[in-house]
């Protein structure tokens, strides 16, 4: 394991410390917790607070999206491990100013259970809390008999849209309605070129041969649906856009937003090349691309690879995506 860290046990604590010390104008930390909140919390007085969180290792998600127009607070768990209910509850209390708090949860058993327990705690103190469980990763078969789909990079679109709505004064119920409305219209699929190593584990979650890629991996090294030889960018795009289109069944003229997300070790150069091919393919399908974003937003430590998120939008949603945001990560 080759990482710039000290004791693996301290990595999240030192990371959060480095983060808030680097950006005091943006972020504050609740001492001795993994909770990071807006330094300018007074600006959302009377508005709904938006809280997200999950395991660490996905930076800039989630703390990097705390700030005006996105999250009010983020809860950083251990690496790839859901944060605990008491910390989530601290975040809820910190950002509630009477209008309630909305939780954005990624669909992993751990996250769902811990956020649920936190929600129970908030209920007992009469704080209004609602939530959405994001499950945008189409690599996994969806079935009511299983855990269902994972929450991955599309979660960032959820943060952005809900954060903009909250800043514009939407009520807790309105935010819940908006979240449920957009949820089925956000879908993501990934391809990995290498695995990632959790500091405390010390070895990669999976390994790929020098010429091998894996389609459909998750953001914690969850296995995907197929391995094959490395393909040119255009061929990756055929596969990934194809899978997404199987789900969306797009018709010509539909409006979409697109996120090309680097998994951590993939240079922006490759991400832009890939986006160029994606846009060509979407043109071919006759879609209207209304919003585009490229970068490392939902990473998986030092994994090499890319995920592609398509979000079926209307003009209002595009406005939310373009809404002025003051965060370090967006």
């Amino acid at each position: 394991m080759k990482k710039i860290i000290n004791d693996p046990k301290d990595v999240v604590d030192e990371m959060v410390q480095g983060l808030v010390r680097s950006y005091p104008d943006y972020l504050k930390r609740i001492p001795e917790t993994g909770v990071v909140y807006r330094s300018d919390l007074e600006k959302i007085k009377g508005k709904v607070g938006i809280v997200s969180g999950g395991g660490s290792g996905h930076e800039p998600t989630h703390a990097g999206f705390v700030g005006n127009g996105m999250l009010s607070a983020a809860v950083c768990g251990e690496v790839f491990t859901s944060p605990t209910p008491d910390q989530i509850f601290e975040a809820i209390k910190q950002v509630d100013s009477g209008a309630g708090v909305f939780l954005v949860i990624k669909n992993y058993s751990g996250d769902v259970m811990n956020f649920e327990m936190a929600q129970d705690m908030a209920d007992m103190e009469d704080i209004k809390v609602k939530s959405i469980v994001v499950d945008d990763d189409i690599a996994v078969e969806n079935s009511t008999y299983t855990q269902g789909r994972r929450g991955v990079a599309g979660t960032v679109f959820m943060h952005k849209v809900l954060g903009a709505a909250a800043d514009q004064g939407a009520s807790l119920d309105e935010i819940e309605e908006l979240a449920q409305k957009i949820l089925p219209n956000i879908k993501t699929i990934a391809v990995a070129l290498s695995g990632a190593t959790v500091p405390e584990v010390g070895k990669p979650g999976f390994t790929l041969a020098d010429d091998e890629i894996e389609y459909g991996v998750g953001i914690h090294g969850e296995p995907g649906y197929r391995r094959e030889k490395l393909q040119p960018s255009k061929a990756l795009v055929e596969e990934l856009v194809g899978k997404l289109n199987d789900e969306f069944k797009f018709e010509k003229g539909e409006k979409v937003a697109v996120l090309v997300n680097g998994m951590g070790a993939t240079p922006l150069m490759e991400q832009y090349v890939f986006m160029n091919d994606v846009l060509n393919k979407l043109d071919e399908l006759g879609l209207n691309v209304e919003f585009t974003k490229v970068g490392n937003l939902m990473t998986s430590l030092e994994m090499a690879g890319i995920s592609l998120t398509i979000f079926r939008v209307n003009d209002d949603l595009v406005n939310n995506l373009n809404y002025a945001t003051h965060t370090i990560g967006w």
Partner: protein
Amino acid sequence: MLNVEDVKKWMENFDNVIQEQRAYLSDLDTPIGDGDHGNNMARGMEAVMAAITDKDFADVPSIFKTIAMSLISKVGGASGPLYGTAFMEMAKIGNGDVKELIPAALAGIEKRGKAVPGEKTMVDVWTPASALVQKDALTVEGIDQAVESTKEMVATKGRASYVGDRSVGHIDPGAMSSGYLLKALLKAEG
């Protein structure tokens, strides 16, 4: 009938195995999960031991409550709320009768995780354990068998569900740690 000292011994036994088997539990979690189950449990049990060692407790429910809170606030992931809820439900029983405690723990795990038997989770250990304990028949062999039974199951809950059929052939890590917990109990009872 467990008393406070029995519960402390139980936790000591469990902590010993967890620290010893930390890497093994994470290894079990690697092919079908995210490789952290050993770390999660080790972190949690460290907190539990810090919270109960050399501390006085008025009764069994209060030590269970302390254990529950330590696990809930230190483990995170899936196993934290599951084990935390199990101990919280045991605390609600109000006494140290294992015939009531184990079913309560199982009920808590089921409520929290919504898994049913056969989904390749810790439920597949707690369910037979709960039945056996009623007949005074909970044994190391019985527990091992339940743990082992998860090997051939297809996971449909938790992270392991993402590998689908490929989960077959691997023991579920949470089932393994639950097995450790129950065997630590047998050892504490003498």
